[in-house]
């Protein structure tokens, strides 16, 4: 009986990958521990190691095939003395879920590409050429462009240099800028956040990468007490132009300590700028703005969005204004306010609602502090109904803040109470079903929208 070799999942968020190279040919003997193939994820190239012995009887996915779904059968191994497989590929068993065809199988929670109805960003001039770019590349490009422009800008963090970034966001920077400007740190968040902050006080422009913002909890004292308050406490004498960046929010199946949205935490602190972009163009334009800012910036990315591609304008210097929300989709019946990964879900919900005759306007806050109140209130005045979708806990959230703004300054425009769609108020569980239950999704957003429309 042939053993099926299946496309492995090599990271918590991997859904497909490229079968880069076969290191064994059909007919080769395989021992456990042999490296059979190289597989590229969006983060790294990994070696695929045999755990069975036998003869590689059939390769089903050619080297160089992209988007091979995790779980797809990529080759067959015959045990000793078994008949080699037929020359033709065996029919995949119809009842088995993985198929050998290289089609991506997104998990239910993974977002679909944003619908074509996404409104054009007014910051992009008509006629600008657009290039599809993954969010992680857009972030990298932003850093590289700013490092070319300003010799004071440097990057520091765990695995940012030689490893090329734990999530590949700093890929290639070491090669271009060298170890002086792309600095690998030990695992010592409190220490290197303090050193970065001190370097900013000393006149440099550090970009401090946290492998994830969960680990920045160790360093939050420097972000808040040292970086955010310096300018005020010194009467405007001492500045702290630093960017703290990294992935934020729930990833995938990594449990409670690695899954948390710190947007509301940092957004509550005067003296900080807090940015949480969704798409690649905003990631690039806002990270460039963050690096140029004279103020300390917390720049919240999202691991689940890193690999998604969006159009990015081909402009020499694409810098977006901090503190300006963006209308992602125009609509007249209800406003959905969201940010970061929530935008993808909100757009999906809006597409569902449109089929039902409800036109939702989707506002991407993009910057959480200072918050673009006016954009929220203007949309509310237009639709008279508003919900907030936030991948994060409900208590003392950005959603709470938006609701408060609507109460205080938009009350006369409200035809229904403002509702919030947030994660469940529990630490994020590991079990797949419970995790799914805990996190927001487009269906819940659509349901809340119907509710405020009384439909």
């Amino acid at each position: 009986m042939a053993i099926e070799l299946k496309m492995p999942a090599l990271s918590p968020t991997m859904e497909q990958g490229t079968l880069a190279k076969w290191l064994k040919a059909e007919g080769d003997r395989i021992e456990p521990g042999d490296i059979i193939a190289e597989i590229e994820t969006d983060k790294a190239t990994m070696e695929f190691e045999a755990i069975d012995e036998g003869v590689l009887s059939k390769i089903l996915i050619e080297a160089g095939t992209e988007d091979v779904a995790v779980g797809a059968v990529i080759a067959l191994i015959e045990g000793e003395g078994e008949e080699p497989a037929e020359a033709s590929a065996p029919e995949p068993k119809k009842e088995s879920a993985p198929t050998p065809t290289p089609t991506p199988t997104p998990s239910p929670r993974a977002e679909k590409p944003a619908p074509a109805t996404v409104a054009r960003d007014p910051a992009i001039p008509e006629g600008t050429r657009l290039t599809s770019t993954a969010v992680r590349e857009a972030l990298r490009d932003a850093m590289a462009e700013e490092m070319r422009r300003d010799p004071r800008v440097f990057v520091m963090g765990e695995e940012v240099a030689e490893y090329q970034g734990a999530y590949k966001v700093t890929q290639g920077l070491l090669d271009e800028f060298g170890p002086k400007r792309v600095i690998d740190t030990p695992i010592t968040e409190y220490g290197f956040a303090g050193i970065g902050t001190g370097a900013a006080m000393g006149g440099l422009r550090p970009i401090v990468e946290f492998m994830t913002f969960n680990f920045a909890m160790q360093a939050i004292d420097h972000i808040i007490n040292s970086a955010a308050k310096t300018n005020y406490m010194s009467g405007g004498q001492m500045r702290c132009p630093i960017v703290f960046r990294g992935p934020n929010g729930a990833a995938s199946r990594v449990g409670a300590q690695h899954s948390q949205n710190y947007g509301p935490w940092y957004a509550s602190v005067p003296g900080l700028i807090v940015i949480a972009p969704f798409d690649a163009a905003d990631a690039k334009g806002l990270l460039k703005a963050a690096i140029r800012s004279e103020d300390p910036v917390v720049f919240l990315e999202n691991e689940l969005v890193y690999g998604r591609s969006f159009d990015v304008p081909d402009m020499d210097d694409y810098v977006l204004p901090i503190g300006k929300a963006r209308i992602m989709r125009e609509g007249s019946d209800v406003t959905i306010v969201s940010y970061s990964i929530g935008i993808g879900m909100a757009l999906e919900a809006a597409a569902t609602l449109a089929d039902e005759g409800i036109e939702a306007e989707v506002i991407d806050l993009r910057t959480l502090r200072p918050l673009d109140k006016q954009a929220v209130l203007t949309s509310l005045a237009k639709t008279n109904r508003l919900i907030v979708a936030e991948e994060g806990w409900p208590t003392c959230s950005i959603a709470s803040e938006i609701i408060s703004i609507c109460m205080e300054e938009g009350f006369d425009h409200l035809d229904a109470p403002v509702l919030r769609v947030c994660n469940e108020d529990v630490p994020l569980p590991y079990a797949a079903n419970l995790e799914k239950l805990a996190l927001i999704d487009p269906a819940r957003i659509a349901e809340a929208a119907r509710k405020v429309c009384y439909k």
Partner: protein
Amino acid sequence: MAKQPSKAASAAKKPASPTNAAAAPSDDPDFVLGSLQQAFEANKRYAADEAEMLEFYRQMLLIRRFEEKAGQLYGLGLIGGFCHLYIGQEAVAIGLQSALDNDRDSVITGYRDHGHMLAYGIDPKVIMAELTGREAGISKGKGGSMHMFSTEHKFYGGHGIVGAQVALGGGLALAHQYNEDGGICLAYFGDGAANQGQVYETFNMAALWNLPIVFVVEDNQYAMGTSTKRSSAETRFYRRGTSFRIPGMEVNGMDVLEVRAAAEVAFAHVRAGKGPVLMECNTYRYRGHSMSDPAKYRTREEVQDQRDHHDPIERLKKTLIESGKGEDELKSIDKAIRAEVAQAADFAETSPEPGAGELYTDVLVGEY
């Protein structure tokens, strides 16, 4: 264990690159943690000329009189919040900072920071006005006693979180190295801060990256009300860099000439690109931890003994008199300082509070 020549030779090869693994401190087989101490012991008291000694005397006395006045103003309710006085520790700041190159070097400290600012010759008026929370204060009255800065002098605070200034100082040193400006950073912290984890995180990176920084433990024997022996497994703080291969120095922080001699040795080492130094200055604060501390954790006799037998100002006064200075001349210095401090206090008391509009300024630099 005198192996200095070979140590210096191999250490000098270290390039100033944060990630040059080949130049890790552990590659230096002749590394001698005590080498700087030996150099210091060989010439323990700085041979100051008379003008220098008079200047040290004047500066220490200025700190003493300034702090006494601050204590008084606190008692009158003119200074609020926390106010940590430097009385007794004057020799540390003056001994060290007099050896700096103020065009290049930076300084950072914790919240007991008045003395370090006065050591720069910053006008006592703007410091006192900050203590009273006035618009003319060096932080426009928005920082207070614990949060004062003078970027003009490369004095970077004035930090209220115990130990934070050590990591921040590491960053200032990184900036010196990055800019290749030849400067070094002097980062002060207390025996209390010496038990904070980030201090050791910073030691590790400073040694790993060969940063130009002198870590100074001002060991005044008490972390608020807890004596070092009740809080610290290793009370000889200069040894605490050992795990990071940072050379240590143990210095009598009650003698300004000894501190200055130690500073010369430490600064030369760091300035030569040989990486960080950890200096322990043993000192004593006469007053409580802050103005609201009744200091019940130590005896009156203990404090009196320090005042009578170890006072840094009296010690230098003795040296000056031995070298032929007249008491009268020293008295006239004191008189001039008392007048200067009285003026600063008047200024701090009479100058206006910040306008209400200042509440909203300096939160952010940019407009968004």
